[in-house]
């Protein structure tokens, strides 16, 4: 009888070797170890996600990871890291990861607001809390994702943030993840935010690289939000080294009568896959996932989301604005699931793209799986070029072409940015967009209709 063994790539073999080498020293209680073992077994059975898997169709991680970089170890704090931290504008609590490891000396841990506690993930993973494995796993819709499995198996550190009932935070909590970039490494980190009933909080997540070497980053953030909470999440993936390959997963379970809003700005992010697995755990909640992807050169940005309306009366909105130039590729895959009893669901999903030139591409794949009969769900995807008539109108009023383009593009992106609730953060996002637009050279040729 012939035994069929799937052919493993060099990277897959290296990952297996790495896991075998480090699993004993990775932090975790017995249930966490089991979680890691199961996840890795799941990964080994399927291998790195590739284009024949529907949910990874446009981001072939197997092809992108020709080799698995060595796992990151304790990095030194370079002047570039210090400089980047000094340049970031966020006041309030700042939690810093360098190469995926929590760095208390770079973080603001003294004077945490009342109701907020922070633990390094390494500590949380060895704590005795019984619900740890459940919290780490997130919604079940994420279970079969091999990108996330790798994170579960190899996650080394991160932060574990708990916000107690009724706490209203005036300033954002920033989780800043910097890559030292002195060596080519692989980084696996995961953070958890537990927001109890009635919490109002803003979480900012930054992913940047400070050094010249490319990395393989696999990050995850898990949200569990209580009833009547209002949690705003802002993710900034910027300043990456061109060959960096990054997967960022967001897992959220949202309580009843709650609000959860996530916004992601992607610019100069090299190759990035963002995946969202979001579930309604209670009725009458509103969830918004939005973002702006600014792509040029050979960059690649994949936004893949699964929105699980598991209960009735949920409202969901997705809006992603993509501006794509060079030879860059954008991907939007949005799946909205409405379970049989999730009546009165109201879902609206949109992906709008402007392609700046011939070499740029965008793939859109909206999917609605509706098993209830009294719902309102819609989706729309547009891919267009800039409107030459609009540009001529602006130029006829004296605006030079780059400025006319920037004005139109800024307005296009702004339609999503306006959902960032915090005024300072919104201004910061717009400033990042303007900076990208002004760099995107005047020299670049834009095709119009």
């Amino acid at each position, binding site marked *: 009888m012939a035994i069929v063994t799937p052919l493993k790539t060099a990277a897959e073999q290296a990952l297996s070797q790495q896991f075998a080498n480090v699993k004993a020293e990775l932090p975790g209680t017995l249930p966490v170890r089991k979680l890691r073992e199961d996840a890795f077994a799941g990964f080994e059975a399927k291998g790195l996600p590739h284009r024949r898997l529907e949910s990874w169709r446009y981001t072939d991680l197997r092809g992108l990871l020709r080799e698995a970089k060595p796992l990151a170890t304790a990095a030194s704090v370079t002047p570039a890291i210090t400089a980047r931290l000094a340049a970031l504008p966020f006041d309030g609590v700042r939690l810093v990861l360098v190469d995926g490891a929590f760095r208390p000396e770079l973080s603001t841990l003294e004077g945490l607001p009342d109701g907020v506690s922070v633990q390094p993930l390494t500590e949380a993973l060895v704590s005795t809390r019984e619900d740890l494995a459940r919290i780490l796993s997130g919604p079940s819709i994420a279970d079969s994702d091999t990108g996330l499995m790798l994170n579960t198996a190899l996650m080394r550190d991160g932060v574990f943030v708990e916000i107690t009932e009724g706490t209203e935070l005036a300033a954002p909590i920033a989780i800043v993840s910097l890559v030292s970039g002195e060596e080519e490494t692989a980084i696996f980190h995961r953070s958890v935010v537990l927001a109890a009933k009635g919490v109002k909080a803003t979480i900012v997540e930054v992913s940047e690289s400070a050094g010249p070497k490319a990395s393989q980053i696999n990050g995850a953030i898990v949200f569990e939000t209580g009833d009547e909470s209002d949690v705003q999440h802002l993710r900034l993936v910027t300043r990456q080294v061109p060959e960096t390959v990054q997967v960022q997963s967001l897992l959220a379970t949202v309580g009843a009568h709650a609000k959860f809003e996530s916004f992601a700005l992607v610019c100069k992010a090299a190759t990035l896959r963002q995946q969202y697995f979001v579930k309604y755990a209670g009725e009458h909640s509103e969830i918004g996932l939005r973002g702006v992807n600014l792509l040029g050169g050979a960059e690649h940005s994949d936004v893949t989301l699964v929105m699980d309306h598991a209960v009735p009366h949920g409202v969901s909105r997705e809006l992603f604005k993509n501006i794509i130039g060079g030879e860059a590729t954008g991907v939007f895959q949005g799946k909205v699931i409405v379970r049989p009893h999730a009546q009165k669901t109201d879902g609206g999903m949109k992906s709008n793209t402007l392609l700046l030139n011939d070499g740029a591409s965008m793939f859109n794949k909206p999917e609605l799986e509706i098993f209830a009969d009294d719902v309102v769900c819609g989706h729309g995807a547009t891919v267009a070029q800039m*409107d*030459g*008539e*609009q540009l*001529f*109108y*602006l*130029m*006829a*009023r*004296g*605006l*030079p*072409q780059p*400025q*006319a383009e920037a*004005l*139109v593009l*800024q*307005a*296009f992106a*702004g*339609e999503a940015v306006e959902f960032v609730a915090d005024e300072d953060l919104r201004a910061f996002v717009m400033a990042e967009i303007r900076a990208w637009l002004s760099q995107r050279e005047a020299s670049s040729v834009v095709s119009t209709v």
Partner: protein
Amino acid sequence: MVGLVPTIPVFLFHVQVVDARHRAEHDAAEIRTETMLEIRNLVVKIADEDKQIINGLNLTVNDGEVAAIMGPNGSGKSTLSYVIAGKEDYEVLDGEILLNGENVLEMEADARAAAGIFLAFQYPLEIPGVATMTFLKAAMNAQRKARGEAELLTPDFIKRVNSAADALSIDKAMLRRPLNVGFSGGEKKRMEILQMALLSPSMCILDETDSGLDIDALRIVAEGVNALRDKSRGFLVITHYQRLLEHIVPDTVHVMSKGRIVKTGGKELALELEKSGYAAYAEAA
């Protein structure tokens, strides 16, 4: 109207700055002409098609002159306005367009605007997400920058916009809305004239400004234009109908047909056309 008067000295200043450049180049060799706009033997086709629209057109607009171009549909009137303003969809096969003696054909649309050309669009474009005030300030400052002038300070800018808006009965709330988005036909045309007043061009081209306007809006727009009439500014008013010319009384009327000017006369020519129609000129071309 009163609000517009104080801005006129500023117009003169701009024109002088633009002229100064030409003088440096031309004065030694020739005496500066009184001609604001001169079009010589212009031949234009659509860039991607083999379709010629303008066929050897000659036209002169002098400083302070209001010239009207009338003509039937398809005679090339709008194309002419686009070609003067610098739209890229056309290919100029022959001829020259001179503004104050300088050929503008090699200039991009923004440079032509900074040099003093203003086109009031027949169909002003909607620009979602760009607040009208933001746009106005960007446009004014871009032109000032191109002319080497300092940027406007915000209080000064707001004062100018408010006074120009009052003169055109433009609601201030409109200025906060995205440019032209959801504006009525009349509001869009008033917004064009507002821009014209604020940018103080030396050569104004009005493309079918009367289309889509009711009588009251037409009167407001015409008064706005008349307030800008000045001995240092030329106007080219493109229209199908004599109606607009009752409100903006031209010095000269040109009849355009099949891409050429086929007859030129005084303001009485417009009345004559209103009676006889364009049929006779179609043959003349």
